[in-house]
């Protein structure tokens, strides 16, 4: 039988109580932070996973920001193109009317003036801005694509403005090259919208109704380009919408994974805490009475 000495009892009591208190304080730490990983050593793999998942969450947050920024660009583009389309419709009606040959020169001249005003309106629509950036200037976003007045030359470039919308560097081009629709006017002779509209205005002013037929054909071809451009913007918006949904799903997925990696299971931790607390209390009580136990000395008399 092992010989038990007083010092043994007190040493093992201290060591056991310490151990229990350590465990209790670690569980309490988990409960108060709500995290099961408070230090890398709590779960080294989990800690590094949590760091990576947090990085992914931050990146996904950025993609969400990029998508809403891209959506704002394309909405602005959509509404500008819609405006341009309305004005081109008006020009078309004026041309059809003028081509009938029933209008007086004064009426034609008034029509020409209206067409000029519509040209100015279309150029103004093309100069739309989002957040201080010209959305139709390619990457030359600080320069307005068209100048007011008679200069119809495109001032921007054909650069693409891209937004990253998902992991792995998936990008989408959010700007539209409006010079493919509007062109650079009569001096360029590119048969694009501004060139056509200037011809129409000129022909109306000159009463040259015979040429208006050709102009109308050109205008129809320009309108087809405009329609394509609008469809293209719509499809970018769809793409952004889809990406947004996908990012939301990914966020939920990563969040769930992160939660299961670093969050504490509250029910389990609470139960563990109560158990540990109860056993610590019991240990304290037992220790107190063991350490107070009398030795033989208390029972010997005289």
């Amino acid at each position, binding site marked *: 039988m*092992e*010989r*038990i*000495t*007083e*010092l*043994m009892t007190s*040493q*093992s009591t201290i*060591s056991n109580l310490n151990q229990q208190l350590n465990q209790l304080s670690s569980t309490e730490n988990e409960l108060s932070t709500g995290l099961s*990983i408070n*230090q*890398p*050593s*709590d*779960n*080294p*793999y989990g*800690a*590094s996973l*949590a*760091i*990576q998942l*947090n*990085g*992914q969450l*931050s*990146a996904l*947050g*950025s993609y969400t*920001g*990029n998508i809403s*920024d891209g959506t704002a660009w394309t909405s602005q583009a959509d509404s500008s193109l819609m405006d341009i389309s309305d004005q081109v419709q008006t020009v078309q009606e004026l041309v059809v009317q003028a081509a009938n040959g029933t209008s007086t020169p004064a009426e034609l001249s008034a029509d020409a003036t209206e067409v000029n005003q519509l040209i100015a309106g279309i150029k103004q629509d093309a100069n739309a801005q989002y*957040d*201080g*950036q*010209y959305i139709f*200037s*390619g*990457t*030359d*976003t*600080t320069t307005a694509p068209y100048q007011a007045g008679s200069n119809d030359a495109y001032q921007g*470039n054909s*650069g693409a*403005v*891209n*937004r*990253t919308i998902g*992991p792995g*560097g998936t*990008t989408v081009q959010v700007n539209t090259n409006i010079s493919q629709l509007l062109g650079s006017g009569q001096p360029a002779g590119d048969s694009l919208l501004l060139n056509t509209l200037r011809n129409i205005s000129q022909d109306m002013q000159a009463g040259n109704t015979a040429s208006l037929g050709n102009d109308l054909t050109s205008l129809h071809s320009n309108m087809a380009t405009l329609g394509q451009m609008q469809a293209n913007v719509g499809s970018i918006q769809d793409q952004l919408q889809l990406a947004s949904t996908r990012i939301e799903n990914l966020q939920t997925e990563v969040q769930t994974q992160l939660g299961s990696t*670093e969050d504490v299971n509250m029910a389990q931790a609470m139960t563990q805490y109560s158990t540990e607390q109860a056993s610590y209390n019991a240990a304290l009580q037992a220790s107190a009475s063991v350490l107070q136990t009398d*030795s*033989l*000395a208390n029972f*010997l008399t005289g």
Partner: protein
Amino acid sequence: MPISTFMGLQTALSGLEANQEGIQTTSNNIANASTPGYTEETAVMTEDYPLSLPGGMQLGTGVDVASITRASDEYLNNSYRAQNAAASYASTQSTTLNQVQSDLGEPSGTGISSQLASFWSAWNDLANDPTSQAARQTVVDDGTTLAGGLNSLSDQLTAVQSQVAQQYADLTGTGGELQSYANQIATLNGEIAQAQGSGANANQLEDQRDQAINNLSSLGTVSYTDLGGGQLTLDFGGDATPLVSGTTVNWPPTVTSASGGELGALISLSGPGGQIDSYLTDLNNVANALVSTVNTLSPGTPFFNPADTTAANIAVAATASTIQTTTTGNPGANDVALAIANLSGGQADQSYAAFVAQVGNDAQTAQNGQQTSQALLTSISSQVQSVSGVSLDQEMTNLLTYQQGYEASAKVMTAMQNMLNTLITQVGAGL
């Protein structure tokens, strides 16, 4: 053959004396019941040399206290010292590595990982709005914060390293703990040899020497050879030259990371190529990856100063006006900003996560080692106490035995006195 008339008195006297020594030993045990390093002593009583009588009879002549022995078990003491060295090694490792990992501040919203995330996200915001001065400034600010975070983490690791090195220097320096224990043991060797040479009891000195060896074992592994005559040779930390041989201290000893104990742990942490060194290398790799990946993509002024590629000196060289978001020169183009934002989750992030996992693994191993070795130490210490400690119940029982023995011997003396009284007053009355 007649025996001396007074012989019985002498026998009773030896009983009185022996029991008195027994009571004194018990009293000393009780007084030292909680003295660290005290070893329970026992008065070993033997029968006195008997008186031979004709006819082959032997007549006992009383009792003698042959020696006062220490209840010491060398095997257990050595296991205790080995485990003490292991526990001390693990506890030093665990304390230091805990400090390192709390310097990291991971995983939380304050560590380098979240600074990296903010940095990449600032580039992303700049990609959305390449002409914005505010976005450029944010990129520079977040970059500066990140570089500063790496600088200060590197400084903290270096500080831990030099603090550990200082601790080692203090313990092993002249007049440090190591030398003072070695001197104590050498001195005690001499004193014990002298005491034993003159036939005296050296229990108290041996207790002191055992305690000094115990203390030494927390600094490194110890082993010793008994030279006889109360002297011993003490090897420390696996060094080929003994630290103490007899009364000589061979100073200074060679201590390596294999020496175990606190000193071994301190060397393995702070020494060249030690754990903290390897953490600094890991952190430098993160800084280097950051500088090279970001700078490769930045046209014009490099974003980070290309000459400073360690965690200690990484610094942002770019300003809000020198940052270029594109290689084309168009103000709204964002190809560079997009490419840099896409570095998120790349080499720098991965190296950093791996670094954190490495520190976490090491700290976890050290913590587990500490718990295990501490539990073993407690258990061995308890066994040592079981053998060498003082049990009050036992002492009280001994006290009772000696007390009764003393009283009985005194009673014998009274009987002898009465007997002699009878002899002298009755028989010799007429003389």
